[in-house]
């Protein structure tokens, strides 16, 4: 609560921190490695020319640097992080511990398979959980994140079309307007053209518009369910049937599986392929942007085309199939070196086993309950975009800010000063100035009540004309609003040594 200016620039516990490149000294080093013995080299004359240019720092300096950087971040562990579509739930430390067991973390993907039976067991056990929970007969484990899973699913669809001799003609993929950006991007990367389907007033796929778009050139639909408005696609079974009738496939974006796990099996909805974000539904940590994992469950129609590698079980014996020669099926190819995100598999299985069948159902119920509680509590102070119950996230738009001069972004920034990570903003695109709030099931009622109180207070402020609270926000953060325009116009993407002082001309 002070305008106090400090000499150092540090402010109590909040430290300014330079780049490592600005602190390094040539002679300093943060490791102790023995000197080489001096055996003759065999580099074939390919020795590196010149130095690398890395800064030298001792271990204490490196530790302090990164501790200080961490202190400039918001995190789930520190506060409420209702970032819609991202499922920022609690990340249990048990999972971290399990992933670090040397039997999982310190095994090489190409060491003899005979030396890693436990790794195959883990993959196959996780696969069993995923298939059982989704009611699907197969799962491709290797995709490295949700978008990669989407690619896997679309490739499987395309491979199936090829097998039917229709890959050349079925090139159109239907994608609702509300879809996550990865959906159209993936379809395009897989060689399809993207055809957008509009949404209805109530936030779902416009069934009539959808049906009108069906035809012989349709490869399939990419539908998110629950969708990015946080709503269950009521007509999903009809959509699935229609797309199937027209010879297409149903790709379901399962990023929001969190909302229905244990209560709905996507297999019962006519899904042909669906990726699961282990880093959302099954709580592998988001790590500042990754890594994730995106296994894809597949229907009988697509299962034969699942990519390499995969684990099969015959009479309880597990086998890793890594190449076409050893495969009984028609794998469409390979998406990645090695076998997928083992480290994430361990964490996800640890999470699933901890919750069990009963707990996972409770996860969905509590996630949905929390979202509806927020929706019900805020619908009179903010503007809810749609009627009726939502699933795991509550969507608001900026109509309640009309005439206040406050925009969605300003509202979000004011939340930061209040100690919250903002919800997802401006997504989905189907409503204006979207605010997508996903509390997740790991938040308490107390936390939600405090949050609701704060949102109501902010809404009141905005309506009362207290623009300064929003325009100047955030004011209490390590940095205030940053100039993104200049950043993009004149990109500075790396540190470069300061130019030596110019000689006078």
């Amino acid at each position, binding site marked *: 609560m002070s305008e106090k200016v400090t000499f150092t620039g540090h402010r109590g516990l909040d430290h300014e921190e330079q780049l490592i490149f600005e602190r390094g000294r040539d002679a300093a080093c943060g490791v102790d490695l023995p000197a080489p013995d001096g055996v003759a080299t065999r580099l074939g004359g390919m020795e590196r020319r010149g130095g690398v240019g890395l800064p030298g720092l001792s271990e204490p300096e490196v530790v302090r640097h990164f501790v200080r950087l961490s202190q400039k971040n918001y995190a789930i562990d520190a506060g409420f992080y209702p970032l819609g579509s991202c499922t920022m739930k609690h990340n249990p430390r048990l999972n971290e511990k399990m992933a670090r067991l040397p039997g999982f973390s310190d095994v090489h993907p190409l060491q003899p398979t005979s030396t890693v039976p436990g790794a195959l067991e883990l993959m196959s056990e996780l696969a069993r959980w995923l298939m059982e929970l989704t009611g699907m007969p197969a799962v491709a484990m290797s995709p490295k994140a949700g978008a990669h899973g989407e690619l896997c699913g679309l490739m499987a669809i395309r491979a199936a079309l090829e097998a039917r001799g229709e890959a050349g003609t079925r090139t159109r993929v239907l994608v609702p307007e509300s879809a996550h950006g990865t959906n*159209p991007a993936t379809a395009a990367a897989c060689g399809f053209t993207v055809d957008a389907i509009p949404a209805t007033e109530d936030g779902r796929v416009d069934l009539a518009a959808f049906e009108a778009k069906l035809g012989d050139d349709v490869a399939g639909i990419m539908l998110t369910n629950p969708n990015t408005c946080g709503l269950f696609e009521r007509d999903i079974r009809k959509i699935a049937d229609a797309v199937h009738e027209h010879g297409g496939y149903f790709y379901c974006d399962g990023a929001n599986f969190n909302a229905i796990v244990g209560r709905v099996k996507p297999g019962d909805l006519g899904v042909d392929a669906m990726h699961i974000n282990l880093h959302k539904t099954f709580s592998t940590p988001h*790590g500042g942007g990754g890594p994730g994992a995106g296994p894809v469950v597949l229907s009988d129609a697509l299962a034969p085309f699942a990519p390499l590698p995969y684990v099969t079980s015959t009479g309880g014996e597990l086998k890793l199939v890594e190449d076409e020669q050893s495969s009984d099926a028609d794998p469409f190819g390979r998406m990645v070196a090695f076998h997928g995100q083992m480290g994430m598999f361990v964490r996800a299985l640890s999470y*699933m086993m901890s919750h069990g069948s009963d707990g996972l159902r409770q996860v969905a119920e509590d996630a949905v309950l929390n979202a509806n509680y927020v929706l019900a509590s805020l619908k009179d102070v903010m503007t809810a975009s749609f009627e009726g119950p939502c699933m795991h996230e509550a969507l608001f738009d900026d109509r309640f800010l009309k005439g206040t001069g406050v925009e969605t972004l300003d509202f979000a920034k004011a939340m930061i000063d209040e100690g919250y990570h903002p919800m997802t903003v401006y997504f989905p695109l189907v409503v204006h100035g979207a605010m997508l709030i996903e509390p997740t099931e790991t938040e308490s009622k107390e936390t939600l009540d405090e949050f609701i109180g704060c949102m109501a207070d902010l809404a009141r402020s905005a309506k009362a004309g207290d623009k300064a609270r929003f325009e100047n926000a955030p004011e209490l953060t390590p940095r205030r609003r*940053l100039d993104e325009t200049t950043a*993009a116009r004149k990109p500075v993407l790396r540190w470069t040594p300061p130019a030596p002082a110019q000689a006078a001309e």
Partner: protein
Amino acid sequence: MRYLPLTPDDRQQMLGVIGAKSIDDLFVDVPEAARIDQAFDLPPHQGELEVDRALSAMAAKNTSAGSVPFFVGAGAYKHHVPSSVDHLIQRSEFLTSYTPYQPEISQGTLQYLFEFQTQVALLTGMDVANASMYDGSTACSEGVQMAHRVTRRNKAVLSGNLHPHYRAVIETTSKFAGDAVVALEADVTGQEDIPSQIDGDTSCVVVQYPDFFGHVGDLSDIAAAAHAQGALLIVAIPEIVSMGALRTPGDMGADIVVAEGQSIGNALNYGGPYVGLFATRQKYVRQMPGRLCGETEDVDGKRGYVLTLSTREQHIRREKATSNICTNSGLCCLAFTIHLALLGEKGFTRLAALNHESACKLAGTLEAVPGVDLVTPAFFNEFTIRTPKPAADVIEALAEKGVLGGVPASRLMPGDDAVSDLIIVAATEVNTDQDRAAYVAALTEVLS
């Protein structure tokens, strides 16, 4: 259930506020036929102790790299990672945050990404790097797609000594994207003639460095040949530690450098998560895939960092994006950045020297085993030997003796008879004299 804060009372009260009678009311939109009431064929919830025991039992069935003489590489390497790395990446503020969409409260993540980008550019000798891809293989495939965009052509020429998985990923992606791939045959001698394959339709040439068998050689001629045809040179580096000892691709004219960054900061993890490095020339920046972090200022004029050039990305550009990537390898970048910060110039170049020396020592002793030939005269920390028995059998027999002796080339090139007697052997700073002696002894026995 320990991770769920709501109590039965809370749930009742909340349903009341919502105006719902039971939780089922909130699932009304689910078609009735799809509502599940029967239990799953899965066990109920368990405590930490029980889960820990079950998973530990599974893990204990695997032979961990640190527990045996270990020489397996071919795209992933066993290195020592300082303990502060794993400690720091587990800090809540790094582990449990996400993509830095709100830069004011994400400067920690953004600054390390900026440092990471700088480190990758320095290591590869390139101008700029992005904030990571999933791994080396997907980075490589993204490199090909980018080359297509830059050159507006769509034919890639792949060296036969490119890691077969990398090749497979490119082929798979290209097949569906409708792009052409010319993949050469593997050449164990490391003498393949790439320039002759490049023509006016070629968008890019992809070579691995050191190559799959471990060969290191000058790429300048390939670069020149590619550039002469208007094509780009993409260099894939599966072992980034090599950059502490070898000439950089940037120095030899590469246009795009992709690499597997696992060796720095990251565990073997049976194949993932890893971290894909992606670097290129300044002029191609706007065609890059993936996230970029840039420097800027806040309203008070203080230096800060933001995600930038987002108009390349899926969340803005949708079907016109340069890639569909969203979640990347954030935390693995951090591990990479911290480990490399600890190493610094002195440590990184020494680490490379120790790796090379470890491989030289091993090659020297293995060469001396009767019947064994060294196939790669020049190498970094990985080389190939020819054995008088099928390589796959040799490796299996070594494993039974408690030595993990490398990767039989046939595992990755199953159709190719020419490689059935080849073992790709990696050595790093973790290998000791005893490890080498154990390898030689076991191999001698296996071959006798």
